[in-house]
């Protein structure tokens, strides 16, 4: 960061005169403003109306927000999203930390190939991951058949059709899809830690576990904050996976804000205003999480 700002100060202003720079950025803003910024402002506006999407809309002030705070389905959705944060947000970061720090301290054959495999779900579309896991956890799918084969058949169940197990199952699927990102992030960051720090810790008599907590973890503060921001926001925004697996069911057990925004805007009993209000609440939550994690990441560095 410091080198970047230094470079910026040295940056020449050779072509910075007149309209030239504005001509270069014009095409970007021509697609960015009408298709990202304006619709976001329109979402804020729509959240103050009651509107079925067809007939004239009616100003209701903060009514949609008031309703959102008392609507049990909204509460369920956000509570479910928070539960997904534990799985998709926290679990991959922990697994990633352990894997990356282990594989940085000793070289094992095939470690690069293993990391590539672990990364693979990152590039696969959410709907494909959903279709894949719908098969894995199907009543006669590989997971249940394996449980039966090893004599644990009493644990076999219809994972996505059981209102107790559906949400944790989706959480595990999300964690499965996200772990590779954390491993790659931490693996890249660990390479940057000076070896001398580990040597100093070893001189002080620290073992592997002590030096993990004394050296690795503090040095990874920034990358952990980055990883948590991505995974927590990803968890709060879960949509594709749920749309293709449970659509929020059974009952409302896997309902999440994204599903609610979609259904209120395009399902039956359309209320665009309510949908927009929930979308704005989700946005505030996402911005808040991003700021909070950044604060924590910056402290003591």
């Amino acid at each position: 960061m410091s080198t970047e700002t230094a470079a910026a100060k040295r940056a020449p202003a050779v072509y910075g005169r007149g309209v030239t720079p504005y001509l270069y950025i014009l095409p970007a803003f021509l697609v960015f403003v009408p298709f990202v910024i304006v619709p976001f402002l329109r979402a804020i506006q729509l959240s103050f109306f009651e509107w079925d999407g067809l007939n004239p809309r009616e100003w209701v002030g903060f009514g949609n927000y008031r309703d959102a705070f008392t609507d049990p389905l909204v509460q369920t959705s956000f509570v479910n999203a928070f539960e997904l944060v534990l799985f998709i947000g926290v679990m991959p970061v922990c697994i990633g930390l352990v894997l990356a720090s282990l594989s940085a301290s000793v070289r094992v054959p095939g470690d690069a190939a293993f990391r590539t495999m672990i990364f693979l779900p990152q590039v696969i579309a959410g709907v494909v991951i959903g279709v894949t896991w719908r098969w894995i956890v199907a009543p006669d799918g590989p997971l249940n058949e394996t449980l039966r084969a090893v004599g644990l058949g009493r644990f076999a169940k219809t994972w996505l059709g059981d209102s107790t197990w559906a949400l944790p199952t989706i959480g595990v699927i999300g964690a499965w899809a996200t772990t590779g990102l954390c491993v790659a992030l931490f693996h890249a960051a660990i390479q940057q830690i000076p070896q001398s720090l580990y040597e100093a810790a070893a001189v002080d008599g620290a073992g592997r576990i002590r030096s993990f907590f004394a050296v690795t973890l503090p040095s990874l503060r920034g990358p952990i904050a980055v990883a948590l921001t991505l995974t927590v926001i990803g968890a709060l925004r879960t949509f594709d996976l749920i749309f293709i697996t449970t659509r929020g069911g059974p009952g409302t057990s896997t309902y999440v804000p994204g599903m609610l925004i979609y259904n209120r805007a395009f399902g039956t009993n359309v209320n665009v205003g309510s949908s927009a209000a929930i979308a704005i609440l989700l946005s505030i939550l996402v911005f808040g999480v991003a700021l909070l994690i950044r604060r924590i990441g910056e402290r003591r560095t």
Partner: protein
Amino acid sequence: MLVRRGNRVATFALLATVALITILPIASVLMLSFHESNAQVRGFDLPDRPHFETYRNAWTTARFSTFMWNSVQISVLVVVSSVVISVLSGYAFGTMRFRGSNALFNVLLFGMIVPYEAVVVPLYHDLKWANLVNTHWSVVLPLLGTNVAFGTYWMRAYFRTVPPALIEAAAIDGAGSFRTLWKVLLPGGRPAVLTLTVLVFMWSWNEFLLPLIMLSSDDLRTAPLGLPYFSTRYSTDRVGLAAAAVMVALPIVVVFVALQRSFVNGITAGAVKE
């Protein structure tokens, strides 16, 4: 020495286990897709021989040839335009000083963290008013908007690493700003452009929410949007659905295997943006 060996064994075992857990579901769905169509497959049943009928059925009867072609058209259009637009604006933000550049760049950064769920609903109604809903434009233009925000950020970071002396020298030689960009700066920026290209390709190919909302006629569906179409229409054909899913994932997986470094570097370095 003994402790060392123990470490190595534990590390290997753990890495191999997580890799196996990652690969097994993918391998299992691949196996499923090679069964006969409508076969009653259980667990890890292997096909007697690889069958390709389901791929043929998904390609023709279930119209995946159309869906894949739609995705190719949309992705190519989005990739080419976003890369060109991002190079131009990243160049300005990275090498030029102009009034309002910080404020404008911060607006772009803000756009990168806006949850897209909050944008699509008003966008749908405004595009409907403009008669663009249910055309590929209603997917292409919003995708351009989001990708250009990241792309500008990404290319600006590259242009800032270029030594200012290089740009000054080009200017002294009488090169105009566009000539400097094209002849002097872009050749060294190939890795950055390649990474941006593969990331934008992945994001536009995999996009689901936008086409789900914007496209209603089956002729216009993209490949990911073909999967819910398939599973409502042929709800009992699990083998066919598996084949369709493999087809949707394949183009990106192929690019990933070929250009791993660009992907991993891009996703990890791009993540630091937040």
